[in-house]
């Protein structure tokens, strides 16, 4: 079990969260097919310190979480837009 101190909701097991897409909102302009394809499908999957969107269903809050995808160490968590 992996616990972490989250803002607003306190200390939580990471089992309570579901991970969201790691993309930013769809931009107004993307250019050509290539850049559309990259934006939709191209994801970095090498072990790294990643910034992810996590959803906590019982509080219905979205968080931005920094995580080492290799060791699962959590560095920081903050609510997405309060």
């Amino acid at each position: 079990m992996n616990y972490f101190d989250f803002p607003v909701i306190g200390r939580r097991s990471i089992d309570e969260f579901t991970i969201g897409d790691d993309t930013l909102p769809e931009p107004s302009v993307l250019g050509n097919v290539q850049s559309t394809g990259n934006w939709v499908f191209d994801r970095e999957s090498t072990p790294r310190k990643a910034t992810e969107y996590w959803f906590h269903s019982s509080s219905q809050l979205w968080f931005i979480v920094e995580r080492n995808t290799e060791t699962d160490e959590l560095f920081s968590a903050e609510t997405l837009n309060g």
Partner: protein
Amino acid sequence: MARRLPTNPHEWIDRKQSIEFSFEGTKFSGYAGDTISSALMASNQKLLGRSFKYHRPRGILSAANHDANVLLQTSEKVNIRGDVEAPLDGHEYYAVNTIGGLKYDAGRFLKFLSALLPVGFYYKAFYRPRFLFPIWEKLIRRMTGLGRVNTKNKMWRQDRKQHFCDVLIVGGGPSGLAAAETLSRSELQVLLADENIILGGTLGYQHPYSQSGSAFHKNALATIQNSKSIKCLTEHFAAGFYYKRTVPLVGPDGITEVHAKSIIFASGAYEQPIVFRNNDLPGVMLLSAAERLLHRYSVIGFDVGIVLGANSGSYDRAINLKLAGANIVAIVDLGIETLSGEKEAAEKHGIEVIYAKKIIEAVGKKNELSQLKILAKDGGARTMKCDGLLMAAGWAPASNLLVQAGATLNYSDELMQIIPTKMPAGLFAAGQLNGIHELNQKIQDGRSAAAEALKFLNKPSEEISRPERENRAYSHPYPIQTHNKGNEFVDFDEDIQITDLNVAWREGFKSVELMKRYTTIGMGPSQGKVSNMNGVRILAELNKKPVGVIGTTTPRPFTYPVAIGALAGRRLRRYWRSPLHDCHIEANGHFEEAGLWFRSMTYGAGDFNQRVEREYATVRHAVGIIDVSTLGKIELFGSDCVKLLEYAYTCSFEKLTKGMTRYIFMTDSSGVLVDDGVAAYLSEGHFYITATSSHAHAVVKQLRLFAAQLDLNVTIVDRTRQVGAINLAGPLSNKVLEKLIDQPLNSKTFPYLGVRDITVNGIRSRIMRVGFVGELGYEIHAPANSLKNLWEALCSAGKEFNIRPFGVEAQRLLRLEKGHLIFGQDTDGMTTPYEVNLSWGVKLSKERFLGRHSLKELKVSVARKMIAFQCQAHARLDIEECNLIIHKNDIAGRITSVSYSPHCKTTIGLAMLDANSLPADDKIIIKTTNGKMVPAQIATLPFYDPKNLRQDETTLDSYT
């Protein structure tokens, strides 16, 4: 002759309690505490199974299920592991993998075909010639598999438990017990797991006469019993190592998932067989098997026993067996070095010691061992009579979980054994697994592992140093004795001989992983516990490289086979019930699970089709009422409602006016349809939207993300479970509703697609005029706690109009005639709006919405196309969803919805076709489940009321 000793103070069996069972139709008896193997052996039944490929006779090898020789089944259960499972009173056991019984197994003649079943047989047979493929397939399907599943058996499931502790100790032998004893002095919560009924491991059978060992054993058991912080789980094996130190322990009552902060592995080692001709004859077993049988169950499996010793330690163990009452006549020593005094000690106990150059073969008679032929170092060839051959070649560590945990293991040339050299943080190894074999050292190793665990958990601990490993080997470097006639078995599960490995190597499979897959060595039910080490040694010899360089294969979970019922656990899925659940029961609803919900599919008496058509007719000709509380219901407040909707959904909200609704759908960033519903514009900054039943939460989650990402001023309230909904539909629906409201109801004041907040029978409701089923209809949303009142009021008001509840099945048929899609049924994980005629709802000119860029590209390259079809025959045809559409002898698509249409009086449906297989003549062929080809005609949608005349009370009579 095998027999049971009259008495034995250490035995596990309870002689007062006898168990009667049968094996292969013959009656046997044993005692409580016996395993099936030991009880059979006690009655001199040595032939216990047949091998997988050649159906060779097999008996006990390890008596610990390290091999899969003794696999049994009853009419109810398969994969019964005879070595470790107790016989149950009155049960009838059979050996798996026989053709016509164990004794006269017709499959035994397969051994004469062994030349035709070479290594890599499958790959070769399936490669060419191709026309033989179906013949091979038929033959192999009959030959392969172990045991037969009785499909009429009742399903059973077991609990899955969670256990949290500070330290998990895997293995309750000397090292494990010592670790537990040490930890008992701390406050830590400790779980000690062992696969046997009784704790002690090798203490009970390899060191039975050690006084210090017995004293330690007694003491440790007492300490553990008196400790409140140590819990023991016997009869549980550790099945694997998973994320964050999670170890599932599998026991007779199911799986316990252990989450530990630290783990001490003291799982011991598997004794390894010697590879020589006929080393699989019943009567040839591991020395530890004889020890287990004797000390645990008081069974001696032979009259004349010979120990095939190939390492240090076998002398002591042979003497111990003799002392316990087994007739050991000789030790045949294959060792390369002997310790001084060993020979003399054995001879003092009347055991002849022969130094052997080579083991030639074991000879069998009537499926049992009768002779051993060897080449002695002095004296040449010798034939010795015996009915028990006890192999002691060395040890392979039970390191499966260590490897899965990421430990580094290396071969020690000094110990001739694989040992862990680097452990991940918080994990510790001790005992034989760690290359420690001497009893007192095993105990010390366990203690120091416990001290290390305490240190890791920041608890005070005394310094206990690890014992020095001995500089002598307990394993033979190459216990392989080739014979020119073969049958020297390396892997007993898969009948792999030395020659098979040679052939594989010659064909180029020279790495350990390739050799494993090509020869299937280590891939049987016992997963290489008693074969991988010898396989690696042979491969090293072939490659002329040291064993350490060859490496080993990665052992994967599970350590032993685990039953599906144990893995599945109890069914702990929740149901959601509609606020109208009681009403459906009262109306004799037929329920089914639909996503999270438990929904009424049809109502009342009659067969399925009768029920559906009765409800269908009610809606088309009178008035029906359906519970749609499962719909997702979301209320939006705030100045940025429209901005949020414009971003989340594909359509434009520009033309949507107050008091009106519109059909909406959303895609993901790749342009694939994910959800649909209705958006109602209530007032400035106030919207109400619906989502599909199974996807409602995902939509709320998504909208919350968008609102936060785009920094919008919107409050999103998930009303799905606060608000229930009823759809009142049919040409007489307005008449029913009018009776319950105090205002006139007509299409001028409340038009089709309008939305109004109206009080119905005193209940504040929000009503939307929707047309999903294609009739005049009112979708009434009201607080969940008043919904039952509302339903009952509508039913009694509708009585004079013959109102009737209709279920999900009738709704599916009604909407199919109307050509409306069901998301998730008519769409799949790749469907775009352009494939299902929804391009009218995509406004690409909008500045920004999710999926816009992908949809722009998809619009010009539509790969599939949804079509509607209608069969010619005026009959209910046997066509099912997912049946294939055939075009020019190839698959062109599949059916997504199909039903008999009372309106069209034939079978109609929707199908998804490849865009380039669309027939020019509008004729398609459907292949039904039983292979029949049914012609059908492409039709135009909708099948029913194309001009929407039925949606308005003033025009509905003009379309019938």
